[in-house]
């Protein structure tokens, strides 16, 4: 969906340009810059500015920009994870503290580094897709959409509109169940058990919709290069899906009214892990984490490719930058996603055949997709046989680790889960 927004530019572009990712391909150092204001993604050779995630050699803790020692009487650091309730994944944090207060947090992401980028080089795109879908299972539709679009771009395929719309439906469903899941986890952390159960039940209903219309609870395997196997053929099925999704969104709104008026719940979130707009911009936060701090970043807005180019997507932002702001953004996005789904399903174009190879393919493409936790970037190159020459992934979580770590400074331990869940971070979603 992106090619026309990619410009090749100088290493130091004019204006407010953020470096978003950088990688090596074919012996060249390439960087992807983002010009949010003008909706451009700029590719340039050479590394314009060292970014934190580049400094993380595989298998080492992320060295943050504020790495180094913590000193002072009574301070110590300890490792939280990789088997910890608050993380639920094979990942850990090195927390420096003097007891109770987090002085510094360093995420350790190497526990599940699988080396997907290295593995897929030389693979056929459809084989690589299997790995990418399973890179972060709960963001599978975003990965699949991003990858397939990039491959189509690189090949110069004309893809039927219907396939693009199917993918958008999947991505929005994924956004809804992930946001609902975040709420369930936050409510559980605040011991709001009824609310947590109800949110979990709503999430389960979306998963069942996924299974019914896309053949898989986590949307694995519905997409392919130039194709989609979603079962949305008839008007009736589309209406059913829409009714299901709207019912979930409606009940979720009711649940939110209760939860966000609960003093106990709000107390845990208000002022927790505050991320200023300056830090969010400077550190390149993405997704609800950025929007919660007032940064107007949403790929669906900035790069409105089909079908988002003629569908209204409300841009939800908050100013406070705390966990509550991030959750509020998520709560509203559940509703806005339901509205987007309504438009997508009402105006779904008729299906057509698989597109044929058009001209203009450059064997190279960059694609960005707004997943549930934010901007997912993939840059890939194809060789002459249509195999992947290289693939670079910049997952949304990878962009948010440092903003998260910075926001956590000064929090107390009990804030940890409320902060962590509100960012929607995942260690699986860090395998660049």
């Amino acid at each position: 969906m992106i090619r026309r927004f990619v410009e090749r530019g100088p290493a130091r572009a004019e204006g407010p340009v953020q470096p978003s990712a950088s990688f090596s391909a074919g012996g060249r150092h390439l960087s992807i810059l983002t010009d949010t204001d003008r909706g451009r993604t700029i590719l340039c050779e050479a590394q314009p500015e060292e970014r934190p995630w580049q400094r993380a050699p595989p298998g080492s803790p992320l060295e943050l920009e504020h790495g180094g020692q913590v000193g002072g009487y009574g301070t110590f650091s300890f490792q939280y994870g990789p088997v910890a309730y608050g993380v639920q994944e094979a990942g850990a944090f090195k927390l420096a503290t003097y007891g109770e207060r987090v002085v510094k947090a360093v995420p350790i992401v190497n526990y599940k580094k699988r080396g997907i980028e290295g593995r897929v080089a030389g693979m056929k795109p459809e084989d690589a897709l299997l790995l990418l879908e399973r890179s972060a299972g709960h963001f599978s539709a975003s990965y699949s959409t991003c990858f397939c679009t990039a491959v189509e771009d690189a090949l110069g395929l004309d893809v039927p509109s219907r396939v693009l719309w199917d993918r958008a439906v999947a991505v929005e469903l994924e956004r809804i169940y992930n946001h609902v899941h975040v709420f369930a986890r936050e409510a559980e952390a605040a011991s709001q058990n009824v609310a947590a159960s109800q949110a979990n039940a709503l999430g389960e209903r979306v998963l069942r919709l996924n299974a019914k219309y896309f053949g898989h609870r986590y949307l694995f395997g519905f997409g392919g290069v130039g194709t989609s196997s979603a079962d949305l053929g008839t008007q009736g099925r589309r209406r059913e899906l829409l009714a299901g999704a709207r019912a979930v969104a409606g009940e979720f709104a009711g649940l939110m009214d209760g939860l966000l008026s609960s003093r106990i719940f709000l107390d845990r979130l208000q002022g927790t892990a505050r991320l200023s707009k300056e830090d969010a911009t400077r550190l390149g936060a993405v997704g609800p984490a950025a929007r919660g701090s007032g940064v107007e970043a949403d790929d669906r807005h900035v790069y409105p490719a089909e079908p988002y180019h003629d569908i209204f997507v409300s841009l939800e932002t908050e100013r406070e930058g705390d966990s509550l702001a991030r959750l509020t953004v998520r709560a509203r996005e559940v509703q806005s996603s339901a509205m987007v789904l309504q438009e997508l399903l009402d105006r779904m174009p008729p299906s057509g055949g698989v597109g044929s190879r058009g001209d203009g393919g450059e064997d190279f493409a960059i694609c960005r997709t707004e997943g549930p936790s934010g901007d997912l970037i993939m840059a890939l190159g194809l060789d002459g046989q249509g195999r992947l020459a290289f693939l670079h992934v910049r997952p949304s979580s990878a962009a948010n680790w440092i903003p998260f770590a910075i926001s956590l400074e000064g929090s107390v331990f009990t804030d940890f889960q409320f902060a962590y869940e509100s960012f929607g971070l995942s260690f699986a979603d860090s395998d660049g």
Partner: protein
Amino acid sequence: MWVLRGLRKGILTTGYPGKGLAPDEVPRSSFPPTPSADADWAKGGGLCPTGAIQGERVDAGRCVYCRRCKDAGFRFEGPAPGPMASERAALARRVLGRSLHVLVLDVGSCNGCNMEVLNLANPYYDFNRLGIFFTNTPKHADVLLAVGALNKAMVETLKRTYESMPEPKFVVAAGACAMSGGVFKDTDGFASPLGDAVPVDVEIPGCPPTPLQLLDGLLLIGGRRRAP
């Protein structure tokens, strides 16, 4: 206030395994490839990305349900594949009775299995009613439920966790990744199938296994479900 909200929703929980399942209750993401009459095994084997189709049989532990073998005449119907248990699992019935404390250990998953494991707690499945509980420390755990493709960086942790558990202890490998490595078996990070690192008692196929499949696997350890 919240109690009322809760009551207003009525009962969502499935009657499984006491009662059968209503058709719309069956959550499916794992469809076992079933050869139809004219299935082409050789072609299926060629299409299969994980080597689950070998000779004339389907290895459920490798299948990631990508549905590619559709072109070779395989259909995707019937019940999700059930858990597979070792002999030792029968011991559990005697010692553990009706209470299981489960430590969930992610050894390198994509988070899909983690999500499904968490879903066991949602009102549709409510595993607490069956006497199954999560615990956060291996020292209280009866069962180690491992998900994901065992990563090299997690091998030590897995062994350490297993060592820390009190006897009798049981290990469940959930998902194709834990059983065989799935699509990740050739990545740099992948160490080995779970069974090569610690003794595995129950294996649950699926990518990811659905909550009901996980429930089946755990009930097998409690001795409340017979191995198929």
